[in-house]
């Protein structure tokens, strides 16, 4: 269960309070957590889980996870970050994550979008089209 209607609504309101200039602000988040600790609302666990989910979803929109099979240069990461910043019109950071299953190439995840440019992805595409 993900909490009742009231908990969902409260989690949504707390999430809105955690934003500053459309971005998740660590200070605001700290304030929200302090409020939850102090007031100990009903269904605190469900509320925190919902709040965490909302924050993670929001953070994922500004963070690109670059999966790579071979070595990746810091400049490439910076290029990806700047290209995505331009595309999504919000500051995007990029971090590298090795994934040998890709065989070669890259896979970039940002929010619910995935940019696939790997040999593994192409092989999957090939398998489904033959």
């Amino acid at each position, binding site marked *: 269960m993900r909490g009742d209607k009231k908990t969902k609504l409260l989690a949504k309101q707390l999430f809105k309070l955690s934003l500053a200039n459309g971005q998740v602000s660590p200070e605001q988040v700290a304030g929200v957590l302090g409020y939850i600790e102090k007031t100990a609302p009903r269904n605190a666990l469900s509320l925190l889980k919902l709040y965490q*989910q909302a924050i993670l979803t929001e953070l994922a929109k500004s963070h690109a996870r670059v999966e790579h099979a071979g070595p990746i240069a810091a400049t490439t990461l910076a290029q990806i970050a700047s290209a995505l910043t331009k595309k999504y019109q919000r500051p995007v950071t990029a971090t590298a994550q090795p994934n040998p299953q890709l065989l070669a*190439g890259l896979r970039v995840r940002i929010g619910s*979008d*995935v940019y*696939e440019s790997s040999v593994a992805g192409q092989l999957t*595409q*090939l398998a489904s*089209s033959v």
Partner: protein
Amino acid sequence: MSTVVEQIEQQIAKLTSKAVKKNTGTIRTVADGVALVDGLSDVMYNEMVKFPGDAIGIALNLSADEVGCVVLGDVSQLKEGDEVQTTGKLLSVPVGRALLGRVVDALGRPIDGKGPIDAKEFFPVEKIAPGIMVRKSVSQPLFTGIMAIDSMIPIGRGQRELIIGDRGTGKTTICIDTIINQGRINKVGLASGDKNFRPVYSIYVAIGQKQSNVVRTIAALEAAGALEYTVVVAATAGDNPANQYIAPFAGASIGEWFMENGMDALIVYDDLSKHAVAYRQITLILKRPSGREAYPGDVFYLHSRLLERAARLDGKGSLTALPVIETQAGDVSAYIPTNVISITDGQIFLETDLFNQGIRPAVSVGLSVSRVGSSAQIKVTKQVGGKLKGELAQFRELAAFAQFGSDLDAKTKAQLERGSRIVELFKQPQLNPLAIEVQAAVLWALQKSYFDSIDIKSIVAAANSLKNYLTSRKDALLAKIRTKAALDAEIEGELKAAADEWKSTYTAK
């Protein structure tokens, strides 16, 4: 071997290093064929989404923090955390002539073991019904081959005629007879080489039925030679509710292809009560607010948008719909029956009492109606059967009164006698549709009192004898009635001679 290698090489050549964008989400919960998915920020309403293991889903609930998808296929392989992808496409099914003679599932995939279907085109399952301007009024008949229906409740091409009744009253039989009749007419028409002949292709959509019943139906169609003009869409009771929900829409898309391409098609939805139940199941799991009888608020729209897709288009073809509704203890005022009654252009009401009395098809003349009326009848049927409905209604009324008194005047007695004869004449065995020319000839004989001297109990046998006599010996006369579609003095003369000859041989026996 070499072709396979060539195919792979071609595919490799097509591959580029360009990044492919996908929109993804992750499954949060899966229950009863419905998956709640996080992510999928770009998903469209009714878009097809891809689950692992080649399962397909439709995005039905788009809310701020999750997407509710119904899964069409095996849900047992899906688990929390699995990745889901958007496809950018609305749910589509293969359409075209290649589907004729085949049995497919709700997604148009063959399930008859006859190999893949070579379909060139795909139509979206959900389509907006044709508008006002492109429609044409219904004026061409669609013969069911059932005398009681063709003469009293005529169905036109492009009409929506509901078949309603309790369980076991012969609803499916009427539909199957109609499909078989189309197959028979198609064969005769196509063999005649008449350029103006318009065949009717049939689509039979089985929703929530027992697999054994569907197999029996397919066998009946095959035995009658009608399967080659028919597409069977099966979402049986064993299929998940999502497949049962989508099946009639898939069938409508298959039928629309024929309509759009200048052909005529007939679609049978057997039945929409089970369809509504499947939809109720899905919407309750999706946590949509429920209303009367726990059906969602849009259950009327569900059926109205489906049935509105049946039409006769100006300059194109037509799609005739025969939706089936099962009532409980003859209650036509329940939620789903009243909805569908108000959407359709008439209904054929089947009564359990009549069925049990041996009057089959058990059509209740008083409650059955075709709002298209006689505009969808050919002249010959109007000539011989124009007064039948009134006579039968009068008979029912008099029969009810006659039970209370024994002294009846001669006129009332004559009316009762005649009514009983009409009732007997309309009895027809299943899977045995009659050609319209034979119907016309038999009704003409009734009109001209050829059956008046025959004992009421022997009417069925006498009518069968007349039908056999006409089909075996008077083929030319029947062909004349069929082509002229009206009774003139010449045909009437020939009919009289034929009926006299039959009567003399029949009474001699």
